[in-house]
C-alpha cells in the first residue's frame, strides 16, 4: 500500500524531474512514516515542480482560465449592474487588444525559448484560447445536461430589490426582450410564440471557444514570426 501511495505521489512531479530525483525521493519516503504533513509537503512541492516545468502558454492559459472562471462566478453572484469589475473584465477581455497582444506575446516567447517551427507558436496561442474557453465549454455541458440554466441580463434590465423575512432579494425584470420559441400544443402541433425566456443555445456556448482557435493560431504565428525576426537581429554577424 505504501509503495502504491509513494508511486502515486511521485506522479505529481514532471517526468524529467522523476528521471533525475524520483528514485531518491521514493527511497526517502519509503524509509519514513507517511504522515499527513509529509503527504502535503510532497504534494505541494510536486505541483511546484510541475509549474516550473510547464510551457509558458500552459501557465498563461491556466491564468486565463482562472480569469474566466472568476468572471463567470461574479456574473452569477453579482451581475454587472451591481458594478462587478470581474464580470466586466470577462466581457471586455475577449474582444480587447490586450487579448491579441497576449497571444502574439506568447508566440514570441515560445519561439525565443524553443526555436524550431513557427507552428509551435501557433499551437501555444491555441492552447491559451482552449484553456481560457474551458469554463465556457463546461457551462455548455451543464446547460445541455440540464444542471445549469442561464438568463442573459442586459443593460435594459432593471433590478428590483425587496425585503422579506429579514433578507434582501434582488431580481431582474427581463420582460423588455423577447424571442420566438416553438412550443407543442395539447393537440400535438408545433406553434411559434413570443416568449421572454431567451436563454443562449447550450450547443452554441459549448462550441463557441473552439471557433476562436483558428484566429488564435494565426496570432500565435504572427508572434512566432516576430520572435524569429528578434532572434535573427540578436544573432552576432559572423566574419
Amino acid at each position: 500500500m505504501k509503495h502504491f501511495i509513494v508511486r502515486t505521489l511521485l506522479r505529481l512531479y514532471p517526468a524529467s524531474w522523476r528521471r533525475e530525483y524520483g528514485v531518491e525521493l521514493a527511497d526517502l519516503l519509503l524509509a519514513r512514516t507517511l504522515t499527513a504533513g509529509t503527504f502535503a509537503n510532497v504534494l505541494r512541492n510536486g505541483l511546484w515542480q510541475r509549474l516550473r516545468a510547464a510551457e509558458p502558454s500552459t501557465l498563461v492559459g491556466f491564468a486565463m482560465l482562472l480569469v474566466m472562471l472568476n468572471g463567470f462566478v461574479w456574473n452569477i453572484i453579482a451581475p454587472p449592474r451591481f458594478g462587478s469589475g470581474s464580470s466586466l473584465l470577462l466581457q471586455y477581455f475577449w474582444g480587447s487588444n490586450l487579448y491579441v497582444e497576449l497571444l502574439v506575446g506568447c508566440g514570441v516567447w515560445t519561439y525565443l525559448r524553443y526555436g524550431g517551427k513557427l507552428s509551435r507558436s501557433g499551437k501555444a496561442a491555441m492552447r491559451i484560447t482552449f484553456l481560457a474557453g474551458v469554463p465556457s465549454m463546461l457551462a455548455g455541458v451543464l446547460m445541455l445536461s440540464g444542471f445549469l440554466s442561464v438568463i442573459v441580463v442586459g443593460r435594459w434590465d432593471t433590478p428590483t430589490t425587496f425585503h422579506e423575512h429579514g433578507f434582501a432579494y434582488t431580481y431582474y425584470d427581463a420582460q423588455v426582450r423577447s424571442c420566438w420559441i416553438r412550443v407543442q400544443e395539447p393537440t400535438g402541433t408545433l406553434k411559434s410564440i413570443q416568449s421572454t425566456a431567451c436563454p443562449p443555445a447550450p450547443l452554441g456556448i459549448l462550441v463557441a471557444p473552439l471557433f476562436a482557435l483558428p484566429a488564435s493560431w494565426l496570432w500565435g504565428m504572427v508572434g512566432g514570426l516576430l520572435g524569429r525576426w528578434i532572434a535573427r537581429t540578436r544573432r552576432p554577424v559572423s566574419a
Partner: protein
Amino acid sequence: MARKPKTGPASDPELLILSSLASGPKHGYAIMSDVETFAGVTLGPGTLYTAITRLVEKKLIVPQSGAGRQRPYKLTAEGATGLTEQLNAMRRVAAAGLRRLRPA
C-alpha cells in the same frame, strides 16, 4: 516551493543543505538527519528535494555517482564560496544585533 519550516535566514532550506554538505558529501536522507541534529529543523522530503534541485541548477552542489540508489551530493567550489559569504554576512548582522541588545 521550498517552504521554510521556521522564519529567519537560519531556517532557509538551501542554506541548511549547503551547511550540511560543508562537512563532506551526503545523500538526501543523511542531509535531512544532519540538518535536524545541528539546526533543529525538520525539512520535509518535498522541500528537501526542491531545494536540492535548485542548488544543482545553480551549480552550488553536484550529485556524485553512488553505489546504491541514493546519490551523495557534494559542495562545489562555487557553493563553498557562496556559503562562506552568506554565513559571514549573517555573522556580521548577528554580531551587530547582539552588540546593540547588550545594556550599556
